[in-house]
């Protein structure tokens, strides 16, 4: 059934139309300091509950759902935003210490501080 409804959108269950399964990459920015990477992601319409951030040895994975749904009886006159979930996957090749991650979501902007692993941090070597 899902195959048919994906081929012919008109047959798809209209109540599930809000969750289109569509995924878009959010706008993001990465800045580097000697100690860490700071990741800034624009996630308009996402609240804390809809946000999922996973950091492991190989990648940073972000999934975010929109908190707002079009109320029943409203018609869209003009749309420029997709009804999609945000997905962002950044491979870091163990450059990031997964235990030291700080994240803050405010006004639709997620700021993540990813500490570099000890091997990547600049080290000053004292010369005897």
């Amino acid at each position, binding site marked *: 059934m899902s195959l048919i409804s994906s081929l012919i959108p008109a047959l798809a269950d209209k109540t599930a139309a809000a969750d289109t399964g569509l995924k878009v990459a*959010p*706008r*993001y*920015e990465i*800045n580097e300091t000697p100690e860490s990477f700071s990741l*800034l*992601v*624009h*996630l*308009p*319409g*996402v*609240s804390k509950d809809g946000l999922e951030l996973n950091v492991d040895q190989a990648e940073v994975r972000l999934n975010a759902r929109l*908190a*707002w749904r*079009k*109320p029943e*009886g*409203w*018609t*869209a*006159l*003009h*749309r*420029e*935003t997709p009804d999609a979930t945000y997905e962002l996957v950044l491979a870091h090749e163990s450059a990031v210490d997964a235990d030291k991650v700080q994240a803050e979501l*405010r*006004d*639709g*902007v997620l700021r993540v501080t990813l500490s570099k692993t000890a091997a990547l941090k600049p080290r000053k070597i004292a010369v005897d």
Partner: protein
Amino acid sequence: MRIIRYTQPSGRTYCAPLARSPWTGLEAEVNRLFEAALSDTAPAETAVRFPLDIYEDAHLTTVRAELPGVDRAAISVELADGTLQIGAKRVHKTGDREETVELRRSVRVPEGTVQADKISAAYENGVLTVTLPKREEAKPRKVTVAVA
């Protein structure tokens, strides 16, 4: 009075200001297309354009604008001459350098359809919602007509 010899305007003199290259217009169009396509790769914080949606139901029109990370106090919503103006500011910090990005968009609102004194706006999760209640006259009305 001076007498100036009349010269027949030729195609070439007429085109003089544009005569740099016959492809100027095309070049500009191609540049514009490339800029539009590449604008998505602009850094998030300094992107000037912001998307908005417009919804409607029987009683109100709602404009939802995606404005993540803007200064809440500097958001301005104005309705004048049938145009709804949305303005915002975003401060972008890179190191010690600060850069303010001005964001502005306008939406045409047909005059006489909105109760201008009852417009409200809210900013939540980086989305600005402007609610424009419709005037009684602009609401859809159901008229029952008795057929004799």
